[in-house]
């Protein structure tokens, strides 16, 4: 890998040990890292760093991670992966609704964080030719509402339909790319950040569970259609509610 091509990551965490260890870990896996102590330093680094992604600890002394995320969103589209405190659901939801791209609960598994960083970078790269869409607050399709921040699906009656993590990520991947056929390989690739070890059949299993929960007849599905030659497509018009449109 050529050094110049390595994505540049800004790590913001107040714990020196974690900061240094994380920088070493990410560098070991082919990323370029600048690590800073707090939001003030991060603001100083932003203009000249040309960062492709920010790893942001929400629990910091001084300016909070949430305020910094808000600031980043108003000035650029740089993707953000948040480190949230375990059990602090509200922080996570607010962060995602502010426009953070993903989150990893602390204490995090470094490999999972790496996978998420790569997934977010890939998503951003996918859209590099056009203007990057900010993470959506909600997707509306065929009466259903999918809320990424709260990780929940509401049926047309407004009743929450619980989904497993895999089912949710699959549906989100499909909703983010409506009317585009996604092959099993593409879906596996997109989900790799989340799932421990997704295997080929996992996609089919998740789709059939989703159809059952969404009352989508498996023999004649209307929402998630099977495409001959191995793929799935969300066959509905998806209305995308951007975070900025309805942020509280």
């Amino acid at each position: 890998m050529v050094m110049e091509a390595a994505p540049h990551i800004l790590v913001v965490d107040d714990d020196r040990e974690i900061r240094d260890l994380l920088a070493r870990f990410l560098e070991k896996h082919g990323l370029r890292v600048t690590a800073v102590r707090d939001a003030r330093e991060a603001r100083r680094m932003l203009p000249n760093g040309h960062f492709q992604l920010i790893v942001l600890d929400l629990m910091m002394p001084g300016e909070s991670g949430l305020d910094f995320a808000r600031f980043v969103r108003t000035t650029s589209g740089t993707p953000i992966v948040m480190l949230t405190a375990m059990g602090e659901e509200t922080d996570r939801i607010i962060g995602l609704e502010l426009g953070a791209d993903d989150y990893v609960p602390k204490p995090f598994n470094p490999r999972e964080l790496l996978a998420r960083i790569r997934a977010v970078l890939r998503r951003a790269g996918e859209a590099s030719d056009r203007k990057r869409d900010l993470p959506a607050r909600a997707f509306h399709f065929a009466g259903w509402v999918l809320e990424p921040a709260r990780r929940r699906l509401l049926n047309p009656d407004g009743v929450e339909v619980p989904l497993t993590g895999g089912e949710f990520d699959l549906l989100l991947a499909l909703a983010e790319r409506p009317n585009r056929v996604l092959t099993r390989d593409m879906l596996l690739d997109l989900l790799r950040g989340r799932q421990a070890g997704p295997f080929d059949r996992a996609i089919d299993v998740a789709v059939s569970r989703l159809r059952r929960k969404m009352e989508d007849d498996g023999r004649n599905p209307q929402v998630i259609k099977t495409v001959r030659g191995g793929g799935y497509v969300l066959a509905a018009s998806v209305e995308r509610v951007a975070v900025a449109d309805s942020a509280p």
Partner: protein
Amino acid sequence: MRLWPSSLAGRTALVLLVGLIVVQVAGLTIHALDRVDIQNLAAARLSAERVRALIRTAVFSPPASRESAVDDIDLPPGMTAELSDVPEARGGPPLPPPMRELLRIGAAGPPPPPRGQAAPSSPPPAHRRMQLRPREGRDYFISGLEGRRPGYLLSVRLPDGAWLNVHAALPPPRPWHSPTFLIAFILMTVAAAGLTLWAVRRLTRPVRLLADAAERLGRDVNAAPLPETGPSEVATAAAAFNTMASRIRRFVQDRTEMLAAIGHDLRTPITRLRLRAEFMDDDEQRAKMLADLAEMEKMIGATLAFARDEAATEPATPVDLAGLARTVVDEAADAAPEATEKLSYDGPSHLTVRARPVALKRALANLVGNALAYGGAARVRLVPPSNGQIRLMVEDDGPGIPAADMERVFQPFQRLEGSRNRETGGTGLGLPIARNILRAHGGDVTLANRPAGGLVATMTLPA
């Protein structure tokens, strides 16, 4: 003793009622004795009156018509009069002193004939003497009746030497003879009993309220305090109870905050250790270290969930309970693919309830996790609303739990002997968390051994 009631109200009422009956009976007895005296006096008066009339008639009638004149006099029942040559009362049993008292003999003697009517014909000297002071043993004889019956036998010498014998049996006193007596007695008893029960209930109600409040406090430390009103003893007890409740609340809160703080502070070192593990060269040791850290994290996660009581802060929303149950089963299968066949869901395909989805999912996941870890299987069954309850049951094929430990396993950090050191691990918080969550929903979690073997954990939710 079977008749001794178990409740304070019952006992107090019983004591009061027995006391009331004793007082009633005593009062009635006094009343009855009075009545006997009055009846006796009235009977004696009446008989004395008649005796006077008899004597007057006998004295003033000419001897030829005397007999019929005496017979014509209306006598009360039990009294007979006849003329004879001998005083029948002479030699009879002595008149008992109470009867003598009643007839006032001794003070004035038997009532003499009225003075003013003394003389159409010239009265004999004996008569005159008798008028002045009739003497017992000469002018008259009086004796008791045979067999000590109440009454007397009186023989009065008439002026011509004949004797008038009066046999008077006084009617026996009937102290209880009154038509209204029984009704009055029953009415009084019933009214008194009713009042007693009402008053006792009112008085013992604070005790029941206190018991209810203690019960509520046991379920929820933040239960509303008791009103400190009512009689001073009750108000004092309520105030003492409220003080105790607030101390317990304080204690629980301190402990909760301590747990939360420890959980929080452990996150940073665990994160560091995880990162350090990534730089270890020994793959096997690294994998083991990461597994240890994952276990620690799980325990901290459970402790935090328990300490924070997340169910209390999550908003309730309509949620598909059937979908939730399927999701929990599917996630368990995803996490342990080898156990997929031991996991199942049975029930309706949709059932909407109002609940806190994240918390409820955690509760069910805890039960399913336990069933899988200790019972080797987890069959989730959703029973649609009946009797105002929705039941969600998790059955396993394990050895079950001894009946004595059924409640103990719901206490935080309590694990049954044998599970503590087994590889199944566990935090000892799964069931307490599940129960807290369900109780916050107005339901509960209970355990029972299945007759066919294995354990069934039942979550109930209000429909």
